[in-house]
Structures are given as structure tokens and as C-alpha cells.
């Protein structure tokens, strides 16, 4: 396979393209000349945590990630959302660059089994563009029930160190390149520790080499999981032994939406939530502390990766992305736990991207405030890799997101003003918690969120029934979503907003691609 940079899909910074051509000419199979190879396509390292909130991405908890990735030279996206706030759909939207309504996955229950064109995903596209691809960590729900045998490596991956269900922090299996390995309950077996070591070994093996590396590290932390040896973190995330207790005195944040006093404006399935008892708050606080502690292990891994890149001289040739698959509730809106609701706590996640300045062709801005989403990361990486969203078998995916490189370089001219991002969820059957709708579709802009709940659990709790309940919040004046503006006063500003967002949602519901970039979608609706 050649190492040609290929034809850039949108535009590639001239300097990078030139460098890539030079590098392509120079590179042979096994190179130790890092300075030369560094000038070709960047290594890409994506670290994704599981259920990490925006709130917990701070220097007290993850000093290395905040300093090394987000800090000098990195860009923090302060308004990043996931298009479906639930593990599997969120991850598949990232892997495909598509909304769930295009890739087929809108719930964990159906998960991987309903993903369309399973061979046409980001790692396969990157392989086509000359990357060696490595997956480490958590993988998609229902993968294990969809493929036979489940030791099978998913399409697109050269290296495969994957945690399938049932996942745990101790006493689990990793599926390793067609085989499997069992881990016990010793200190060294802690999942975050093992995933960190694995990532470092892969960096050691492939960086620098003739081929750029795409490493996707899917952490399990801070997802709650089995394996706690102490009562304290039972039912929560399990920190590594060295980090156990480091946040045991941390106060639970209590924003204005915490244990929301008046929920009479909320949909029926939220209205049924009782006010949080002191027992509930004690439980939430304990889980919050354990979750934070589990992130310390992830932060150690970030530091080690950074050091490894420094040792090989590849820092300036490596793109690093840090994000989470969805947020989480810690008592906001009376929700004692969980996600898959459309409130900001679940939708918004940390996103920081570090692209070396030479590749960006401009000084990176430190903060981007425009609303962006997980589907945009995909387009960004494709542009950096000079790759097309097309599988070797020929299947291409129309990307619903946009590359973030312009925004990162400070060029906002090409970015749509008042962008609307679709947020969507559709469970197969009744959701695992009845304080949720069976399906929602909404649109989130920089200033508003409008969501329809067309299906909600019925009285029996065993089936879903149609509903016309909806929510509209003004995120500017009401960032904690305390007051649903629906139903609106006719003629009021809110009524105009509702009308506009309703129309917007009609476009987004079945949208595909970006106008001016992609072919006319079958629905006639572009996503932007």
C-alpha cells in the first residue's frame, strides 16, 4: 500500500500537503528517521471516556489532560454535544460521521446489530488512507451478539484489544487480535491500567514508523461497573487502588437544576420523579466521588502517552483528541443517575483537540464556542488524514458533520451562523428507566433547544404510547433548563422560536450531508 497523501477532500493546508509529498517520496517500509516521517500524515490518538460529564473535565481531576491536550496549543470546544446521549449510538455516530437516523443506531439495545454497512467506518477509511489502526478498550453494544465468533476483529482494525460485555474493572476479558485474554483482580489488572499499558505498547510499536498510527482508546471509566473491592465504590466507577479515596471529601456540585424544585413544566415522565431524598443525595455524592477517582487513572494514561510521544519526537506530528461519549446526571432535574435525556448534563461533553500548528496552518485558537458535535470529529480527522469516507469495498458514507479545522484556526467565515444540531434517540421498546421518553427528536442551537417526545412509556410501563409532549428552553437566559417555555403564548417571542425550531427539526429529522459539499439527499434535506 502506498503512502500517498491522496487528494484532499475539502482543502489541505498547502504546507502540510507539500510536506506529505516530500515524506511520501522518502519513506520506506521501516523508518527510524522520525524527523522525515513526522512530516507526512499525522498520527491520530483519540481518547474517549465513558459517561464523563463536562463538569468533571477540570484540572483538579485531570490535570494532565487539561494541561497537555487542552492547554498550550490545544483547542477546547466549550459547546460540544453528542447527537445521541447514550454510549453506543454516540460512538457509532463518531465512527460513521453520521446521525443515528442515517447509520441506523439510535439505542444500545439494537446497538451494533443494526449499523448499516458495517465495513464502512472511520478506521477502515483511515486504513485506506495509509494508516495502521488500533482499537483499545470498550466497544459497541451488541457487537458480541452480532458477530460469530465474538473473538472476531471488527472491520477496519489492524490491532484489536477490546473489552466486550460483560465489562468490569476487574475479572474481565480482553479480546486480543482474534483471541482473548483473561484478567484477574490484582492491582495490575485494573482495566484502566491495562488499557493504558496497551495503548503505550502500541505507540511504542508503531510510532514512528512508515505508516501513521490511528489509535482509538475507548476508556471504560468513569462508567459504573463491577469489580469494586470496597463498599464505597460498589455500583459506581471503580478507581485504581492508588486513586481510591482521593476525592472522598469532594462536594457534589449542586447547580440550580440540582433536585429541581418545580418540575411542573417538565414532561409527564419527568414530573413523576420524586424530590431527591437525603439518601438519594448521599448515594449520588458517593458515586460522583468514585467517578472522579476513576478518571485519575485515565489522566495518568494521558500523561504517559504524552511522554511517549515526546520520547519519539512525534508530538508535533500527532493529533490528540479527548472527549466523552455522553454526559451524565448527578441529581440535576431530580435524575439520580443516567443519561439518554435531552438536558445539557447528558448532551454536553468535554471535547479538546490538539492539532500541531504546522498542520493547522495557523495558530490554534484556545477556545471554540460554536456548537459542535461528535459527528464533526469524524470529518475533522478525515481532513487531517486526507481520507475519504469510503470503504475498500466501495461503500461511501455521506458525512453529516463538518471539519472543525477552520474553527480551530480561527476562521469562522465558513461556519454556519446559528447552526442547528439534531439530537435524537429511539429505544427498541420501553427504555430501561421510565423517567425517559421512548423516543425523542430535537434540535439544539447555540441559544435554544427544542425537543419532541413522540413516544413515551405508557401506564403499564411495558409499552410505549404516542405523545405530543415537547420542551423548549432558552439556553441563554435559562442555561440550567429550569423553565420549559412550552406551551407558548401565541404571538410571544417564544412562539416564534418554537415555530422556527419546529421547521428546523422537520429538515433535520431525515437530513443527510452538507449543502454545497455533498450530493442532494433522498429526503431533500441537508443537515446544514
Amino acid at each position, binding site marked *: 500500500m502506498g503512502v500517498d497523501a491522496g487528494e484532499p477532500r475539502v482543502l489541505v493546508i498547502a504546507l502540510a500537503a507539500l510536506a506529505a509529498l516530500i515524506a511520501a517520496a522518502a519513506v520506506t517500509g521501516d523508518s527510524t528517521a522520525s524527523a522525515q516521517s513526522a512530516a507526512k500524515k499525522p498520527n491520530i490518538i483519540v481518547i474517549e471516556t465513558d459517561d464523563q460529564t463536562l463538569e468533571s473535565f477540570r484540572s483538579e481531576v485531570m490535570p494532565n489532560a487539561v494541561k497537555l491536550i487542552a492547554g498550550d496549543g490545544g483547542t477546547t470546544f466549550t459547546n460540544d454535544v453528542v447527537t445521541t446521549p447514550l454510549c453506543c449510538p454516540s460512538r457509532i455516530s463518531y465512527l460513521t460521521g453520521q446521525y443515528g437516523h442515517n447509520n441506523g443506531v439510535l439505542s444500545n*439495545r439494537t446497538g451494533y446489530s443494526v449499523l448499516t454497512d458495517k465495513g464502512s467506518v472511520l478506521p477502515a477509511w483511515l486504513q485506506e488512507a495509509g494508516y495502521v489502526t488500533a482499537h483499545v478498550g470498550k466497544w459497541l453494544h451488541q457487537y458480541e451478539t452480532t458477530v460469530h465468533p465474538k473473538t472476531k476483529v471488527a472491520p477496519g482494525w489492524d490491532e484489536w484489544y477490546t473489552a466486550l*460485555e*460483560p465489562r468490569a474493572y476487574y475479572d474481565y476479558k480482553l479480546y486480543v487480535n482474534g483471541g482473548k485474554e483473561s484478567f484477574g483482580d490484582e492491582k495490575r489488572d485494573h482495566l484502566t491500567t491495562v488499557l493504558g499499558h496497551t495503548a503505550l505498547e502500541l505507540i511504542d510499536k508503531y510510532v514512528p514508523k512508515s505508516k501513521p498510527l490511528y489509535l482509538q482508546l475507548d476508556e471504560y471509566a468513569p462508567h459504573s461497573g463491577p469489580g469494586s473491592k470496597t*463498599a464505597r465504590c*460498589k*455500583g459506581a466507577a471503580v478507581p485504581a487502588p492508588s486513586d481510591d479515596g482521593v476525592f472522598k471529601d469532594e462536594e457534589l456540585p449542586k447547580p440550580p437544576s440540582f433536585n429541581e424544585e418545580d418540575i411542573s413544566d417538565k414532561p*409527564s415522565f419527568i*414530573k*413523576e*420523579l*420524586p*424530590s431527591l*431524598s*437525603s*439518601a*438519594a*443525595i*448521599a*448515594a*449520588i*455524592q*458517593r*458515586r460522583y466521588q468514585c467517578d472522579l477517582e476513576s478518571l485519575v487513572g485515565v489522566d495518568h494514561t494521558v500523561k504517559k502517552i504524552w511522554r511517549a510521544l515526546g520520547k519519539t519526537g512525534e508530538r508535533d506530528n500527532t493529533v490528540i483528541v479527548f472527549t466523552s461519549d455522553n454526559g451524565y446526571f448527578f441529581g440535576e432535574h431530580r435524575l*439520580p*443517575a443516567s443519561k439518554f435525556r435531552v438536558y445539557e448534563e447528558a448532551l454536553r461533553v468535554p471535547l479538546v483537540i490538539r492539532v500541531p500548528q504546522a498542520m493547522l496552518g495557523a495558530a490554534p485558537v484556545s477556545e471554540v464556542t460554536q456548537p459542535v458535535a461528535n459527528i464533526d470529529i469524524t470529518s475533522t480527522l478525515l481532513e487531517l488524514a486526507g481520507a475519504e469516507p469510503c470503504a475498500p469495498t466501495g461503500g461511501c458514507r455521506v458525512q453529516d458533520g463538518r471539519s472543525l479545522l477552520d474553527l480551530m484556526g480561527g476562521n469562522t467565515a465558513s461556519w454556519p451562523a446559528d447552526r442547528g444540531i439534531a439530537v435524537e434517540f429511539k429505544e427498541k*421498546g*420501553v427504555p*430501561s*428507566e421510565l423517567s425517559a421518553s421512548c423516543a425523542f427528536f430535537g434540535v439544539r442551537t447555540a441559544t435554544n433547544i427544542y425537543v419532541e417526545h413522540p413516544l413515551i412509556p405508557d*401506564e*403499564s410501563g*411495558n409499552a410505549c404510547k404516542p405523545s405530543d409532549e415537547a420542551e423548549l428552553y432558552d439556553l441563554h437566559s435559562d442555561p440550567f433548563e429550569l423553565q420549559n417555555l412550552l406551551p407558548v403564548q401565541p404571538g410571544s417571542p417564544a412562539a416564534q422560536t418554537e415555530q422556527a425550531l419546529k421547521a428546523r427539526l422537520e429538515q433535520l429529522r431525515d437530513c443527510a450531508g452538507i449543502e454545497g459539499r455533498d450530493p442532494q439527499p433522498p429526503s431533500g434535506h441537508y443537515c446544514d
Partner: protein
Amino acid sequence: MFAIRDKPRLPASAIALAAVGFAALVALAIGLAALEGAHASKPDKPDLPPGLAQKPNIIVITTDDQTVAQLNESTMPTVMSQLAAQGTTFTNMIATTPLCCPSRATFLTGQYMHNNGVTSNRPGYESLVRKRAVLPAWLQKAGYVTAHVGKYLNRYGKSVRPDSTPAPGWDEWVAALEPRSYFDYELQVNGRTVKYGSDDPDYLTRVFNWRAVKLIHKYVPRKQPLFLSIDQFAPHERGAGDPAERCAGGAIPDPLDNQLFDGVPLPQPPNYNETDVGDKPSFIQDLPDISEEERLDIERRWGCALASLVAVDRGLSQIIAELQNDGELDNTVIMFWSDNGFFYGEHRIPAEKTIPYEEALEVPMIWRVPSQYLGGATQARTASSLVGNIDIAPTILDLADAQPCLGKAATNCRIMDGRSLLGLMTGDTTGFGPDRTLLIEQGVCGYRGVRDLTEVYIEHLGTRIENTETCNPELEIEHYDLGADPFELKNLYPATSNGVLEAQGRLFDELSELRDCSGVEGRDPAPPSGHYCQ
């Protein structure tokens, strides 16, 4: 074969004998005497083919609203001597939903009410999900002949046409549907309705006993092992009655036992007529003190309940005698339990069962399992691990080498929430360690809670909004340390120390896990909620 007035044929001599003696002492004698006539006409039974004989007959006797304290040497000497002294008594057994119909639905399904759908007595049977997927039907698949005698799930008769239709899974069907009464009632017998009057031989418990014995006589020993469920009505209270009667409004004893336990003092544990209920939820705080007049009434009903159990015990002696005569006692598992407990003035509750204090949750349960079904091991006399009614069906299936399935496909199976108790009966506590936690739950807007060996934590969910299926989300919480405070006098919620607050946080999370749980990890498929029951 049956007359419209179908009566047990108790020899007059036996009745006379009982009338002059202590019921406890003569119970066995009556049982034996009652069966003498029947043996003469016993048909020849085929020899047992090898293989099938390996499965035990299984006989379950369920009483109705019987408390743990009501099971003792004086009320039920046969249960004590034939079951407790030879089998395993479970000293920490609870009904996960302390109410007749949900508890019995759990017995039939091995599931918590949130999985089998039966959350209350109304609509009762109608709300049972997958009505064919029940214990007797699974046992039929495993080669059993199945027989039901007695009370069935509430409002069963309202959900079938005609109401004499036997319920799915039963080869033999003798059911007392509503309105139930100790006299002047109807039985549904294999599709026909049989009326009973008010003479002594019509006494409900006697009729159940006699019919149970007849069914054993008919099916034991045969090619097929027998599963017989005897659902007694005693000591359930009957409601209104002739005020001249001793037991008006209470449980009606067999006329043979009408003088028994008259005037026995009402037990008054420390929580009887609880003095300080300021720590309790509002509906307990609203209860008035128990007056002396009321105390006397509770005491009267207490004595009647005790007396009504004597006939149940007598039935067991008749059953054992029949099994002995058939040479099948050692091939038969016998289990005795009650569907829920009852209050007799504890916490100021004069007469009730649904409230989740220990008096309602705890029930007696004893299993007599011949050692051949325990791999030759001897039964432990007691098992103190926490167990629940969800564990009964898994245990019976284990004994019968059966699965909770109507067919081969996984969709034909019910996922049970409990686990087999057979290991515990030989002292193996695997799966029943001190960390075992059971869910307790009631109704749509009732309560949910968790109970382990040392603590109970309950969230009362509020009141139902009228004409809707939704609840006013008004939480009232109770938390008791059962080790230090077995009578639940001091509600620890809200916590006044960090230690207790942390414990309550842990219990809250356990409840969050269990409230929508299903199945047992390692045995059952991953539940939709993501939460296994264990």
C-alpha cells in the same frame, strides 16, 4: 361421580373423638381414620417405570395471612413434628410483596411483581403477564401431573368465561374463587361448580384437606410424579359474620376446634400499640392508639386465627398418612409456607398485611426433602440466610429437574428472579451470603424497598392521583437497623450521622438496582434494564 352437595366422609367416631380431646393430640388419629374407608376401594396402580420414579412428588401447603408467631407446637403440631423436626426451617424468609395475590403470583412465576405484573389484588390475576408460563405448566413439561386445591389468584373468576374454567397448567382443578368463605361457598371442580352449605362437613379447610388426600390417593404412586398445591384460606379473616359467633369477622375454625385458643392472651411485643410514632410515615402517624375495646377484639381474632390453623395441621397429618399408606412418603417433598404475615396491633395497625414491617414481610417456611433428592445429604434443620418467595419456584424446578420454559426457544422461558434453595438445605450458602438483598415492593404508588439480613429501607412512593395511573411524587422513607432494633421502633431516616447517611446512600443505590431487576447473573440473559436481581 360427585353429588351437588359434595362432602368429605369423615367417620362420625373421629368427630366425636376430636370433640372431647385436644385437637393437637388427635389430629393424626383423625387423619388415619378418615382414610381407612378409602383404601378399600383403591384401584390397582401400574408399576413405576424406571427413570420417572426418580422425580419426587411435590406437595406445597400455603396458608393465608399466617404470621411466623402463629406457627408453633400448639397450633400446628404436625407441621412441627413431621416437617420442622425432619426438614429445614427457614428462619429469615420474607414475602417480597406482602399481599395475597402478588405473593401467590410470585410463587407461580419465581418473579418479583414488577416482572410478573401482579402488583395488587385488583385487578389481580388479570394483570399476570404470560398466563400460561407458570410453575404447574413447566412441571407438566417435566412429566408431572399437577393438581390445585384451594384459593387461587384474586379475581381469577372475573378473567375467564365461564369462571369454572381451570387455570393453565393444572390437570386437576379444585378452586375456591371469590366470594370466599369458610361455609356456604362454591368450589370450581374441573370445570364444574359445586356448592357447599353450612354443615360441619362443609367446613372449607376440611373439604380442601379431603380433596387433597383424594388426589394423592388417585395419583400416588403412578407413572407420573404429582405436584399438588394446597392453598388454604385459613387463617384469613372472613369479614362480617354473625356477631353471635365467637369468631365473627375473624378466621373461622373447624367446628371441632371452636373452643381452642379462646381467651389466649394477645402477644404484645414492644411495638404493640407503639407509643411514639413520630418517626413513622404519615399514614402510621394518623393511626389512633389502640383502645382497650379494640385490643380485646384483636385478641379475639388472634385466638380464632390460631384455632383455624389446627384444621390445616390436621390436613397435613391426613396427607402424610396417605403418603405412608402409598409407600411414597420418602418419595415426596413437602413444603409449608404462608403467603404473607399480618398485623395484630403492632405499630398501632389493628388488622392489615400490606405495610412492609417485619410482621407482614416475614412468613414461615419449612421444606421436608428426602435425602435422596439432596444427593444423599442430611437436611440442615435450619437455614438462616435471607430467602424469599421468589426462591420457591426455582427450588421446585430444581427438584423436578425442570426449566421455566414452555418450549425450547428462549422466548418460551420466563426469567426467574429467585434461586434454588436446595443448596441451603444442606448447608451450602453459595448465592445466599450475608450480602444478599431482596426487593420489597407493593402497588403502583405503594412502596419500594430493600431488605437484607440486618437492614430494611423503604420508600413510600406517595398517593395515586385520582383516576390516573400516576402518583403524587411524595416520598416518605423508613430505614431500620433490624439487628439493634428488631421491632422497628426507631426510623433512622433522615440520618443524623455520617455513617447512617452513607448506609442510606448505599441502600438507595441497591434499591435503584433492584427495582427493575430481572434474573440472576451467570444464569440468565442480560436484562433490558441492565440490572440483575443478584
